[in-house]
């Protein structure tokens, strides 16, 4: 069956999740990926939304992280102080999903401003919970489509720290979490170089060439010696995505 890049992105993100893990879920593709994982290899995935819903089992595709369908039938609803202190800062969140307008060479993410903070060309929404998720989640997965504006060598503003911030590493800054372990794009997967944390090409999607990836990246992208192959979406994955999880193509528009 043919598939869209968005569909493969959702599959790649879903495959990154292990059964039983506690995941801080975002809206859109991350939500699809988590529900896809629950419907396939990770039935006991625990979905937590920063709005306070723990163990949510949304009966419909939530349009916002505060959707009522995340509450109905969930295991627990708690205040946001518990979410950020007793769950996130406590170290209970194993995977966090992040996205952003800009992602740089070191996995730093900008969701705050394009241009100067005090005189922005484009004012973006800001951190929300992203800054603390980037710091505290045991690991994070970043999802973003490739293009040079989205992948500059250096972000205009570090909202969510990656692996190297103004030259300092996560360890030097004493951050509990491992940071972005995978950047899932529409053409390839990037992963941090274990040596210095620089994002490098680790896996190509079927039919994509390294040059196509480089074309969407604002720095000269290094690559792993051995690139992983990414399996195309299975018929089951496509069926779930198209017929069950996002039948109205809210997030999977081609």
């Amino acid at each position, binding site marked *: 069956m043919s598939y869209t890049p968005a569909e493969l992105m959702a599959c790649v993100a879903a495959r990154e999740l292990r059964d039983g893990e506690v995941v801080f879920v975002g809206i859109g593709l991350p939500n699809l990926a988590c529900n896809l994982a629950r419907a396939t290899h990770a039935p006991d995935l625990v979905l937590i939304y920063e709005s306070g819903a723990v163990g949510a089992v949304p009966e419909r595709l939530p349009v916002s992280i505060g959707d009522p369908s995340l*509450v*109905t039938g969930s295991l627990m609803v708690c205040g946001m*102080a518990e979410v950020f202190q007793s769950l996130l800062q406590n170290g209970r969140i194993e995977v966090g999903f992040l996205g952003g307008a800009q992602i740089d060479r070191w996995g730093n993410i900008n969701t705050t401003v394009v241009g100067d903070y005090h005189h922005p*060309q484009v004012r973006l*929404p800001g951190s929300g919970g992203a800054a603390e998720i980037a*710091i505290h989640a045991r690991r994070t997965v970043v999802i973003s489509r490739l293009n040079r504006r989205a992948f500059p060598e250096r972000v205009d503003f*570090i*909202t969510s720290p990656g692996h190297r911030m103004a030259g300092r590493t996560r360890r030097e*800054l*004493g951050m509990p979490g491992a940071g972005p372990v995978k950047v899932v794009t529409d053409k390839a997967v990037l992963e941090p170089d274990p040596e210095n944390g620089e994002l490098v090409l680790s896996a190509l999607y079927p039919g994509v060439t390294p040059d196509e990836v480089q074309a969407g990246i604002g720095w000269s992208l290094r690559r792993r010696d051995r690139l992983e192959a990414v399996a195309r979406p299975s018929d089951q994955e496509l069926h779930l995505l198209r017929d069950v999880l996002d039948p109205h193509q809210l997030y999977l528009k081609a």
Partner: protein
Amino acid sequence: MSLREAVAEHVRDGDTVVIEGFTHLICFAAGHEIIRQRRRDLTLCRLTPDLIYDQMIAAGCARKLVFSWAGNPGAGSLHAFRRAVEGKGGAPLELEEYSHFGMVGRLSAGAARLPFWPMRNYLGTDLPAANPRIATVECPYTGERLATVPALNPDVTIVHAQRADAQGNTQIWGLLGVQQEAAFASRRVIVVVEELVDEAVIRADPNRTLIPGLAVDAVVVEPWGAHPSYAQGYYDRDNAFYIGWEPISRDPAALEQYLATYVYGVADRTEYVARCGGLDRLRADQRVCAGVNYGF
């Protein structure tokens, strides 16, 4: 007490105002009444300014915005907010920006009447550079430096809730956000409810009470008061309205027209609900849980 009276009495020009509710129970009714009463120079605080503050900014109520995520979830931007910040028209708007955790900490400190709240956060981000009020403190036991945010103690907080009694003992279920912290942190508190209930209803299930009447200054009954936000068990979020806000908010004339029709053009919430029409489509299904035994 009517919402008009409550706002007239408790919301003053220049106040620091919190209308909380994380997606759930955002009191649009109060925001509209504040716009109608033409309050000015307000410092508006919310984790997510949402459409309500976009409208209040467009209406010229706001001098400053304290926030952590300013967008229209899944639908686009808050364009009145963006125009002000990007210098593309509208009055200038001062910003004080945190992350969600930072705003939660600010209200937690306010509720506990502590001057600051400690957290492990912000290292490696550019937020402290953008907001000098994010500081650090040294742990007296380990010597490590922790991030701090200053307490937020609003002049007035408006909490929307499913129900309360006449004394303001307020019960909320579903998403709780930071409604309790905001109420305890505030000098004055207005509670706006879908339903006024007898004190006996509150006393039958005291663990559901999130805000005690002793912390509440005014109780207002305003069904559909959270629309286009939602009230769990009462009505669903009007997602079509949120999506429809994108083009309205993008066009200053359209936004002005919206305010003229749905805010200035109505006397109160009842007229607003009538003008919206067909809100019954949002009425919640019945998913009533079982009670628990409080006997001894």
